């Protein structure tokens, strides 16, 4: 009839100890990532306490009632305290923080391209060319230099982009616009596959006998996997001094994007499926390898390259990008009792109705935003700002325009605009700050449920507030939960509204933990 709390040998392993009747303090928390933290103090004799303290392998804490998994997570900390042991557990999301992830997915940044140096091989002669990667890849012949294909090999300028070391994915697609100008038919431009060391593997695109202007021409295609892609410009005839004006023979690439996926667009769900496979391979008994709960935001991502990044951080970032809808919806990622990563638009999974005796909420304008612009760096590392997007209704309601910005790690103005719209959608309504302590919940039919049913991501409607209160302006009567703290011993749940301030979170956590 109660919540049984047991320590188990792994997620699916045998029962080590049923600590339920020995608990003197216990808190179960949920947040945007699912089950977040559990702290439990267990009354035990010293032998038993050290037995638990010294258990090898991964221990899990499961709390179960009537088949419902009230809380579940991996034991992260054990501390011997007077009269027993204090345990700290973290929800399955913690598996996304266990091992860093390095992969290239797509790159649209000119800054990342580098001129392959002479020391890398015999086929490069970069010092004889004019070149830049300012908002383009550019190479041009310079007056007075000698160009040609005599020994020790053809002399070329090569722009190359390698995969980050440790990336298992390979380049398989590229798209770009190229414009080439040549003084005679002895000049050649190409797009190549190369290996990790820079050695030539094969040409993907070859434009020979350039005379006059070629392009601009769009290129978009897949090719055989490789570790490095490169563009080159060279003279394919015998060595000769270039006497024409500098720049009169040149190659210029814009709209450049290379990918490690074959489809022309990259959506978050494809990355997330790979992350799930990565995490479930590193720790096979961690999260489920199932990806059926990952939805696609339909937002094409231009720059996704991860070097030693924690999967949890990556997932969070992808969720914050929103989706392709107008205005974009906010997304969330969480792992609950089924151990499956869920990636989906935020919505109210359930709505609970509560009557509260003590309400501690306040409102302030300083978190409210009525117009937003995005800040990003373009391909030349120049800081850019998107156009301002506004919520006219919110401005009219509040009587002022509170403008904010959102910094986005992208070179795409479209992505920055999406983030700005997402922030506006989320914060153009006045925040309610505070917390609500609840001792009873019911659904829309008045049916009462156990308090541990309330989780982050659910909506709460407070029924016994004054009816004159506007529900549209202020998220007091109805709000979405960002965090819950359930005390099964006192049988009460503390609910924190979405968008509460960090300061409030800290204060509440300290107050709750005593």
């Amino acid at each position, binding site marked *: *009839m*109660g*919540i*049984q*709390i*047991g320590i*188990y040998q792994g997620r699916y*392993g*045998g*029962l080590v*100890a*049923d*600590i*339920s*009747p*020995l*608990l003197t303090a*216990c808190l179960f928390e949920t947040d945007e990532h699912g089950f977040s933290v559990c702290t439990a103090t267990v*009354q*035990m*004799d010293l032998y*038993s306490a050290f037995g638990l303290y010294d258990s090898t392998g991964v221990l899990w804490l*499961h709390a*179960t*009632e*009537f*088949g*419902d998994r009230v809380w579940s997570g991996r034991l992260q900390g054990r501390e011997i305290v007077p*009269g*027993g042991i204090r345990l700290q557990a973290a929800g399955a999301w913690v598996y996304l923080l266990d091992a860093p992830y390095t992969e290239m997915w797509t790159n649209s940044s000119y800054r990342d391209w580098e001129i392959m140096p002479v020391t890398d091989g015999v086929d490069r002669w970069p010092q004889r060319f004019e070149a830049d990667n300012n908002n383009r890849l550019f190479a041009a012949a310079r007056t007075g230099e000698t160009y040609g294909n005599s020994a020790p090999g053809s002399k070329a300028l090569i722009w190359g982009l390698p995969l980050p070391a440790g990336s298992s994915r390979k380049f398989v697609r590229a798209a770009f616009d190229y414009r080439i100008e040549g003084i005679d038919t002895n000049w050649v431009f190409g797009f190549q596959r190369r290996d990790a060391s820079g050695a030539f593997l094969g040409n993907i695109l070859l434009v020979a006998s350039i005379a006059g202007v070629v392009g601009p021409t769009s290129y978009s295609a897949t090719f055989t996997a490789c570790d490095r892609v490169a563009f080159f410009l060279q003279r394919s005839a015998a060595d000769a001094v270039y006497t024409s004006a500098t720049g009169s023979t040149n190659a210029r690439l814009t709209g450049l994007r290379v990918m490690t996926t074959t489809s022309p667009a990259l959506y978050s769900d494809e990355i997330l499926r790979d992350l799930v496979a990565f995490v479930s391979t590193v720790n096979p008994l961690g999260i*489920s*390898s*199932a*990806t*059926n*709960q990952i939805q696609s935001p339909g937002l094409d991502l231009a720059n996704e390259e991860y070097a030693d990044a924690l999967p949890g951080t990556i997932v969070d970032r992808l969720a914050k990008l929103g989706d392709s809808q107008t205005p974009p919806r906010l997304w969330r990622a969480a792992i609950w009792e*089924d151990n*499956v990563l869920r990636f989906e638009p935020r919505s109210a999974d359930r709505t609970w109705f509560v009557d509260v005796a003590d309400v501690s909420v306040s409102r302030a304008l300083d978190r409210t935003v009525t117009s937003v612009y995005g800040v990003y760096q373009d391909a030349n590392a120049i800081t850019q700002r998107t156009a301002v997007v506004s919520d006219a209704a919110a401005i009219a309601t509040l009587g002022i325009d509170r403008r904010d910005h959102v910094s986005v790690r992208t070179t795409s103005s479209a992505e920055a605009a999406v983030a700005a719209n997402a922030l506006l959608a989320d914060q153009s309504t006045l925040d309610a700050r505070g917390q609500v302590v609840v001792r009873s919940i019911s*659904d829309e*039919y*008045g*049916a*009462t*449920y*156990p*308090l*541990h049913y309330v989780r982050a991501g659910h909506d709460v409607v407070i029924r016994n507030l004054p009816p004159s209160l506007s529900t549209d302006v202020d998220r007091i009567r109805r709000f979405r939960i960002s965090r819950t703290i359930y005390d*099964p*011993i*006192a*049988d009460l749940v503390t609910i924190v509204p979405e968008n509460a301030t960090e300061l409030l979170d800290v204060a509440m956590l300290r107050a709750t933990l005593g």
Partner: protein
Amino acid sequence: MATQPYLAISDGLTTVEIQSGTASLAAYAMRENAWAPTVAEMLHSRISGYGPYSPVVETLTIEVRGSSIADAYAKLSVLNGLLEQAHRWARGEKVAAVMVNWSPMGSSLSPNSGTPYRDVIIGVGPNNQTSGVRLSAEFDQTFSDYAIRDVTVQFVRRNGAWSIGSVVGSLAAAALPGPLAVTMAQADPFLSPTALQLQLVNHYPGAPYTLNGTLIVAEEAGFNIIDASAAGIYGLSGEWTNPTDAANAAVGGEVWRCTPASTNESDVVNWESAGQQALANTRYGVWAAVRAPTAGVTYTIRCYAFNTIRSIPLKTVTIEGGSSNPVIIYFGTILVRGTVWVPRFTVQVSTLTGSPTCDFNYVALVPLYPSTTVIDLSIPMSASGYDYINVENLLLQRPTPIVSLTTYSGGLGEANTFPVTYYGDPIMITKAATVRVALLAPRANYWRLHNGSTPATMAVSVTRQPMYRVPV
């Protein structure tokens, strides 16, 4: 009927009598009007391991009497030792439980000291920094009559209620999964600790296996298992069919099978039967026996609470297909006022490669009251003869509950008793004249326990220790 009250603290070997049950004075005499038992409130905590009532603090003032000064000191030491032992027991140390035994004057259920009400002591009250024994300032001034006066004794009774006697009920071996209705010798007025022993018959297939299943104990008649042969179930569209599956010992002989026509969410099957009328205005849990056999397919199974005009999503469950072995899945709870809401299911598959199917054999609808117990079991059956599963409700004998497997009908304390892995609260609390027990446990490709040639059966024995908050 007792004409004199009896009150004692005892671990079974050492007893401190505070009221003797006779007119004579006990060695530990209670001061007149120095104690009244605390009547417990309902338990606020939702943590398992306790009964339905809060632990209570008892405080009484006594006089410790001896035949000499040394004897008085010795008696004081015995009392102190028992209270310390109670604290140690509660911390899990290997010492005997310490009981408070009480036979109030005029009680019909406890007429004498031989049949006392009992509760277990788990230590001293909050903020009490003594052993449970506090001496007065007169301690060293009253030795002319070898009595230590005004000794305050404080302890916590674990269950907040008094237990007395036991009530049993049993049922001969019957078909699984149940529910099997066990008739008790009597109904009791209050929720009381209940122990259970299950005897499995014809379950061992001649080779080791792991019994993974869900044990459900409930009192209410609405506890029902509806198999696929029930008349009221209907699936919409041709994606749902109702074939027989006797080869796998399907309960009722049939399954409802979903053969998805696309990778979208399938049409629904509504799991209705006449028995669900008893569940109106009741919060009940939904369990289902499901088989997702197609390899390489990820199944997304959704459950909804449905009435004529609305459908409310419950849990979404993911199964990686590829096993012909059924599994028991918990799909959440339904509690909707008014008309009966029924579970409905849909299936979504990740691919149509392999022509995936998904079968449902039965659905358990379980009213979730305080008297309901749900335990998920994982028991390695490594040899024949381990036929008894014991769910011991030991609110009076052990600080923590235990679920075990034995070869012996006597249960705990006997040879060949093995604690097993469980999830869920094993503290069973019942009071009704009928206790219903079900074991939802497929084995290998069978929908229920099966030894390979015969479906297993199960005998049930229930023992309840009636509890009272005030004496009768």
